[in-house]
């Protein structure tokens, strides 16, 4: 597959994402004709359709875009940093740890004292996860170690999350594990968006700035350092950036898995396998994927709305399996 130029790739992804976002605003539990939506959006007086758009549909679409971008970007960044195409926040346990952090922050009531508590909880959880992952699997670079570390982190995080939910005196808590493990963007409000968005954007800035370092790392750590890359700073930027992006996302929507695996993998040939170029493309690709998945989930008439993580897992898990099988010889 030939490499696409930046303009062509980012332009195409951008346009597709914008179109998807517009259609996404048109989907909801109520059937509102597009003409009415258009009119209401631009009308000067407040009206209920606009309220629906702004209070419900806009946060949902915006979160889908931002969470998708965060997951795609974090996946691409982690793969570049760990030099491993199987690295992805969900697979390696970062998302699970973020969910744990968010669950602890939410169910202990911290959110009532401080609105940022839950996203920050997610970020702290994700940060601890990345640090543990680096400690367990950073140096060796072997796929086997990475996946094993991911299994360990996921098991640990999942168990503690379950425990936290069971220990909550609120009787609804124990039934809510499905939200955290499978993810959902349903009923997310402007408040959710307001508290998560700035943190996600901060994460994006940190990650997007590491393009050169990731390119240089293709040649190995020593060569990268000799080319002037400050590996310590790169490590910190990536740890913090991934923690912010993934942590704030998972805290708001639960774990939506495999986005950071599928999107970079599909786009990698189009950027000539260059980790630096893959960052921006994966952000847009992730946004597109999650918006499309969310639109699908809303359009399926299945009674209770399907959790979006179920859909991404249905796509992503076979994908992951195919990657593993195909690269069996290459992965030590």
């Amino acid at each position, binding site marked *: 597959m030939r490499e696409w130029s930046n303009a062509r790739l980012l332009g195409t992804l951008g346009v597709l994402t914008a179109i998807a976002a517009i259609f996404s605003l048109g989907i*909801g*539990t*109520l059937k509102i004709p597009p003409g009415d939506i258009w009119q209401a959006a631009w009308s000067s007086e407040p009206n*209920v*359709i606009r*309220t*629906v758009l702004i*209070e*419900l*549909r806009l946060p949902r679409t915006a979160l889908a875009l931002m969470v998708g971008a965060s997951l795609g970007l974090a996946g691409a960044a982690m793969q570049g940093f760990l030099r491993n195409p199987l690295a992805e926040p969900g697979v390696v346990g970062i998302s699970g740890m973020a969910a744990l952090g968010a669950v602890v922050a*939410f*169910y*202990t*009531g911290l*959110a*009532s004292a401080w609105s940022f508590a839950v996203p920050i909880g997610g970020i702290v959880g994700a940060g601890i996860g990345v640090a543990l992952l680096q400690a367990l699997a950073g140096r060796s670079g072997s796929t086997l170690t990475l996946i094993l570390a991911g299994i360990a982190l996921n098991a640990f995080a999942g168990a503690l999350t379950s425990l936290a939910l069971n220990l*909550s*005196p*609120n*009787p*609804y*808590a124990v*039934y*809510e594990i499905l*939200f955290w493990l499978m993810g959902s963007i349903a*009923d997310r*409000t*402007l*408040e959710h968006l307001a508290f998560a968005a700035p943190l996600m954007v901060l994460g994006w800035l940190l990650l997007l700035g590491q393009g050169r370092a990731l390119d240089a790392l293709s040649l190995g750590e020593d060569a990268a350092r000799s080319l002037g890359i400050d590996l310590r700073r790169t490590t910190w930027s990536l740890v913090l950036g991934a923690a912010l992006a993934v942590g704030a996302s998972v805290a708001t929507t639960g774990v939506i898995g495999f986005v950071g695996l599928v999107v970079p993998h599909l786009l990698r040939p189009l950027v000539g396998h260059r980790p630096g170029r893959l960052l921006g493309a994966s952000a847009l690709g992730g946004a597109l994927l999650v918006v499309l998945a969310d639109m699908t989930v809303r359009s399926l008439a299945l009674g*209770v709305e399907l959790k979006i993580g179920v859909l991404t897992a249905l796509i992503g898990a076979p994908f992951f399996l195919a990657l593993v099988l195909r690269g069996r010889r290459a992965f030590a």
Partner: protein
Amino acid sequence: MNIRFGWLPALVAGLWAVDGSAKPLRVASLNLCADQLVLEMLEPVRIASVTWLARDATQSAMAEAAKGVTINYGRAEEIVPQQADLVLVGQFTAPAATAMLRRLGARIEMVEQPRDLAGVRREILRVGAILGEAERAEAIIAALDRRLGALPPPIEPRPVAALLRPNGVTAGPGSLVDDVLRVAGYENFAARLGLDRTDRLPLEALIMGRPDILVVDYRDFALPSLAQLQQRSPMVARAVPKRVVVPSWAWTCSGSAIAEAVERLAQARI
């Protein structure tokens, strides 16, 4: 059945020598709604046990009364030694415990979930008869009717009320809540939307439909859950500024407590 244990049911049945038509001396309840009726109609000495839920003030109208009575956790082995003449269960009460008690020869009667106020009255009378407290039951109903009679009369057009429970659940036509809303002088928002007896209330519908008042029966736990986020969300408060809180204990079950629900709703209309 295993022959070795064949003697046990016979022994226990002997212990239980029950005459189905006589007034039961001691009654055990394995169901919260049955608890309410039992606590309201019987003196403590005649109550073998009620469930532990009866002591929860947010769910049980008779929580104070339940403190003076033995509680059970819904297990057959707790009931057997209590030697109750009658065990009241609900439709979904632990089937294993119910089956076990039935096998041991206990007299089991089922308490039903009413779908409207008429059903509430019927159930109070029926259970009253089973408990041998028919006059008591009639007194309760008389008091209930007095309170309902004292309400301000409904005004047309009726205000629209939307019930919002945790996880966005509402109550449509054919439910007790629906009937209570009607008696209190409202129109049920869920009926306007064509929803079922228990259905989710889409937030978009809430914003677009703009009911006049939001009815919330949330139990105020110290610590949060996702299920209750909607009820507490600023967005819902913006969409429907007026709200009334009806505690769960008022209308989950039959009993005179239902009057509380109707009264609060009717007051909120003014």
